[in-house]
């Protein structure tokens, strides 16, 4: 890991000279790759709203962590995220016509409870940091966690991707081939929960969903198959992450917002390209 830091400090940019920016840079790259990978299937499964609810529920996770005095609040955050993911999944698989409404009830409740608890225990300046994110807050131990998470995500992706894809195309078709649909859906949702919760502190509750959805949405505009779809999604996510971090450093803006702005710019560009070439 220290080799990476050394390499970063040798780069001729002043933003890579400080330790906190080096950590931020590594964190952005690691989570962007994960968001890019997971995003394609999240989009194919029409889970944009699901992950949005998950992001909002982080507020409660953070508050519970603070109140319980858990040493590493990430543990409370991830545990709560997984709980919410499984809960929402159950509602979704129930197939009720009002799934969207129920998810919305869950997510607004979790957001409200979280904000209530946070406003009771923290000053408004402190908890608003969770809403818009603080890139400078990335710690050494969180980077280790991110590396570990990336390894797990890549491993699960390599083993389960084909099954995830079939489930996204048609659940009954997947079931007819002996795939345990509910199990894999839960694994996938937990994966989203972990990746979202690991990044929520520096991206912020308000924008976390765009990190997941925008790169994949941009990639599907121009991809010609599953391979280029995933590859482009990862490239778009990583490019937006790095570019957003650099711009925010020089312009003094929130990094999360800048990253999402660049993703959005890529989305609209690819959307235009598709509209023109498919006339």
């Amino acid at each position, binding site marked *: 890991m220290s080799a990476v830091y050394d390499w970063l400090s040798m780069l001729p940019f002043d933003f890579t000279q400080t330790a906190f920016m080096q950590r931020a840079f590594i964190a952005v790259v690691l989570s962007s790759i994960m968001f890019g990978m997971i995003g*394609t299937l999240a*989009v*194919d*499964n*029409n889970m944009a709203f699901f992950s949005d609810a998950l992001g909002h529920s982080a507020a409660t996770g953070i508050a519970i962590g603070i109140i319980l005095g858990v040493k590493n609040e990430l543990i409370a955050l991830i545990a709560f995220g997984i709980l919410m993911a499984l809960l929402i999944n159950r509602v979704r698989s*129930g*197939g009720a016509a009002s799934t969207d409404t129920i998810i919305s009830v869950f997510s607004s409740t979790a957001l409200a409870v979280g904000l209530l608890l946070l406003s009771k225990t923290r000053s408004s300046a402190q908890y608003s940091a969770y809403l818009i994110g603080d890139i400078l807050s990335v710690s050494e131990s969180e980077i280790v966690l991110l590396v570990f998470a990336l390894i797990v995500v890549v491993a699960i*992706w*390599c*083993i389960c*991707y*084909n*099954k995830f*894809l*079939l489930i*996204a*195309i*048609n*659940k*009954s*078709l997947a*079931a*007819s*081939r*002996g795939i345990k*649909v509910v199990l894999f859906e839960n694994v996938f949702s937990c994966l989203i929960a972990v990746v979202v919760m690991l990044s929520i502190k520096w991206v912020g509750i308000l924008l976390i969903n765009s990190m997941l959805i925008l790169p994949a949405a941009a*990639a*599907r505009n121009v*991809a*010609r*198959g*599953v*391979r*280029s*779809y*995933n*590859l482009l999604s990862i490239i778009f996510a990583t490019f937006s992450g790095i570019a957003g971090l650099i711009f925010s450093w020089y312009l003094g803006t929130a990094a999360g917002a800048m990253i999402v702005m660049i993703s959005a710019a890529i989305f609209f560009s690819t959307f235009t390209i598709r509209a023109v070439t498919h006339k």
Partner: protein
Amino acid sequence: MKNECGLRCVRLDNVGVIKGSKQLIQDVSLELRCGKITAIIGANGAGKTTLLRAVLGDIKYTGEIDFTDHNSNTVSGIKIGYVPQKLNFDLSSPITVIDLFCSLKSKSPVFIFKKKQNVQVIKEKLAANGCSGLENRRLGELSGGELQRVMLALALNPIPDLLILDEPVSGVDAKGLGTFYKTVSELRKRYHMAIVLVSHDLPLVAKYADSVVLMGGKPLAIGTPAEVYNTEAFRQTFGSSFGGELL
């Protein structure tokens, strides 16, 4: 004795499906036999697709569903080929026909690479089912008939013991539909597989099906097309204008 026609393939005994507080289907007892086409007909919401999903193991059910292999042993599962009613994902997704086939056929994740050998085999399978040249098309770009042929080619790879076709009529023109039934009928003869299909096309069912199950929450009539089309339940479901002249 391998592949003998008429062997029992699937037996449903008193199968029911409850969703929430709603009883979707109940009291379904029937047999699907090798080399026979069983058609499930009925009004909308009669539980046709629910019945198929129970056989697929995609939905919780009460009662029993047994599978029997070619040597009359009860087995926990058989090879099932399934042609869904429709694909439920966002059709603007860049998933191609070959992506779909490879994700079923191979363990190596399709987002990294596809084996050349597999790709060649799949191209041949597609060509054999009248889908040559479709392999690199997005699923969302296929016409109703093309998608149906692709899904059938997929269901036949590998050759299943039981082929399940859910409403193969949707989005396909009359000529394509006739061809499709002819293909399915030939499959039954060539591979002796049990075939069960949900259909809305009563004349084609009368022409090709060996037995018919009329559903209305539970089986209202079971028998040959001639038997079922002459029942009171059939006339109540489809109106008295249908029936005799279809046979």
